């Protein structure tokens, strides 16, 4: 008598169970239009039964030649294109590009503009992380957190609408300073938002992060080790989730970040293994509270004064040279490598986008995990395809 678990059904007609079945690998196309890919991106999954045997990422569906455009329009005209790489954190993109151009101009913007830049960048970080956390819940089947997240993100977008008129593509931070000063009472509104947000933050924590199903779907899944994270060039919450203590705002301070007090959040393996999907989400959750801390300090310290550098005009001709300037975007290191030959059009505008580098490791995290975890892993990378493809 055979001893396999299905043996008791062997007497039934048609129930001859073959034990050594040779299974065939099955190729599954995830995307290009899939809600969990957060944009048009295709992942080719090789499934051995329910287990992933391999994955291959196909990019390029959203390639809009941003770098080529950079070599064909003048320095200031390129600014609106920067809004469109990471469209969830356009303020940060504007900031990265503006700092890169200013590094060739040799122009440091006035103090008030620096504070306004940090306020907008950190507000945008909160909005971006809210969207990341909310949609991550959605990827894993939890619908409610997204609506709470969008409710709070809406408040940030309204603040941005008041300061620059746009809700998604701002072009507010520009080479030389910022577009205009904060309107009357705007800073008070920011403070009020922070008070409300600190309360609702606990909602996300209890509703989502401490949820048993969420923990089951993310803890111990897609573990990225420290060596892997460094070798693959991961940055941002991806790198910090693996326990690496690295944040450009503290370690390579730009603007006024050296005068502000904040902690760099790292993954600690809170519910599983260090560097798993849970840790990456965990880092994003606490980065929002750190941003609140930064914003409170900025609101208390912001000086009066000019908001544009007096020498940066409508047409700029940066000095010849080449410079790489990077900032900490919500998704990681956004770097601009800009080359000027002294004319009003750039020789090269290279965009080192965090999602591109973070995504390159995702296909190596998948083999061995369950098919359903593909969404967990891709979601935890928090890609914006506008940025991977540029």
């Amino acid at each position, binding site marked *: 008598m055979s001893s396999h678990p299905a043996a008791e059904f062997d007497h039934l007609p048609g129930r001859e169970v073959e034990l050594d079945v040779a299974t065939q690998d099955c190729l599954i196309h995830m995307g290009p239009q899939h809600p969990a890919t957060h944009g048009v991106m295709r992942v080719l999954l090789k499934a051995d039964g329910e287990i992933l045997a391999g994955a291959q990422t196909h*990019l*390029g569906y959203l*390639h809009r*030649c941003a*770098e*080529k455009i950079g*070599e064909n329009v003048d320095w200031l005209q390129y600014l609106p294109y920067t809004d469109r790489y990471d469209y969830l954190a356009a303020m940060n993109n504007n900031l990265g590009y503006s*700092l*890169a151009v*200013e*590094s*060739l*101009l*040799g*122009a*440091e*913007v006035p103090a008030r503009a*620096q504070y306004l830049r940090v306020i907008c960048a950190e507000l945008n970080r909160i909005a971006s992380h809210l969207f990341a956390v909310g949609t991550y819940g959605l990827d894993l089947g939890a619908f409610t957190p997204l609506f709470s997240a969008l409710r709070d993100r809406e408040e940030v977008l309204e603040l941005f609408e008041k300061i620059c008129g746009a809700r998604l593509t701002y072009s507010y931070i520009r080479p030389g300073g910022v577009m205009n000063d904060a309107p009357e009472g705007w800073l008070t509104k920011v403070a009020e938002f922070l008070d409300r947000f600190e309360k609702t933050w606990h909602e996300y924590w209890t509703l989502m992060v401490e949820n048993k199903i969420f923990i089951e779907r993310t803890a111990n899944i897609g573990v990225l080790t420290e060596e*892997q994270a*460094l*070798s*693959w*060039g991961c*940055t941002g919450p991806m790198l910090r989730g693996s326990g*690496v203590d*690295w944040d450009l705002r*503290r*370690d*390579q*301070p*730009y*603007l006024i*970040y*050296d005068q502000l007090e904040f902690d760099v959040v790292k993954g600690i393996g809170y519910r599983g293994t260090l560097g798993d999907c849970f840790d990456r989400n965990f880092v994003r959750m606490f980065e929002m509270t750190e941003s609140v801390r930064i914003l409170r300090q900025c609101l208390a310290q912001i000086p009066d004064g000019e908001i544009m550098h007096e*020498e*940066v005009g409508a047409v700029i001709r*940066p*000095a*010849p*040279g*080449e*410079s*790489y*300037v*990077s900032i900490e975007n919500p998704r990681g*290191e956004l*770097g601009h*490598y800009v*080359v000027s*030959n*002294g004319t009003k059009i750039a*020789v*090269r505008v*290279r965009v*080192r986008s965090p999602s591109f*580098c973070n995504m*390159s*490791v995702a296909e190596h995290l998948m083999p061995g995990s369950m098919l359903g975890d593909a969404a967990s892993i891709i979601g935890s990378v928090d890609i914006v395809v506008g940025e991977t*493809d*540029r």
Partner: protein
Amino acid sequence: MSQRDTAWGPMEVQRVAASEAAQALQAVGIELKLCVPNLPWVAPEGEAKDLVRRAKEEDAEPVWRGDAYLLLSEPGQVTQALQHCRDELGYSQLYDLTACDPAADETQLKLIYGLRNLKSKARLILQSRVDKAAASVPSVASIYQAADWHEREAGEMYGITFVGHPDPRNILLPDDWVGFPLRKDYEYPDEYNGVSCKE
């Protein structure tokens, strides 16, 4: 905490790192030139313009601004140089790898490797030059895996062959794309697979 020299980040730490790395790499037989910018980091625009103009008039060494970098004389030595930087000098991360075409009439492309040391908080930029006619350079994907996708992108955009790359397919462009779009002499296509590219 790193020293903040300018509003766009610390510059002095990069410059010191570049000269230290230059000595260390030369000691192991890698031929290179240390290129240091000669315009001040922060200067009134008019002053910088004067310096640029004067350098042109006097036919002196060109003045430029930005990051200091190491220019490798021999592109074939790039793997050896990066290996040394990673294993001996502590540059654990390749944050960027890209190329640049300086002008249509130039015969060479620039290759730019950006390394980062998370302990000393320094960045290090290595550059090399390859001929446009036969652009070929060893792949560094076996040293830093981050180079995998960056080399694919630089390869398709500039027509550079990365010898020894594990998977040299196009990454952002379609597989049947003709030409190398980021070269300065790139000619825009009239049509792609029957779809007109004209306005």
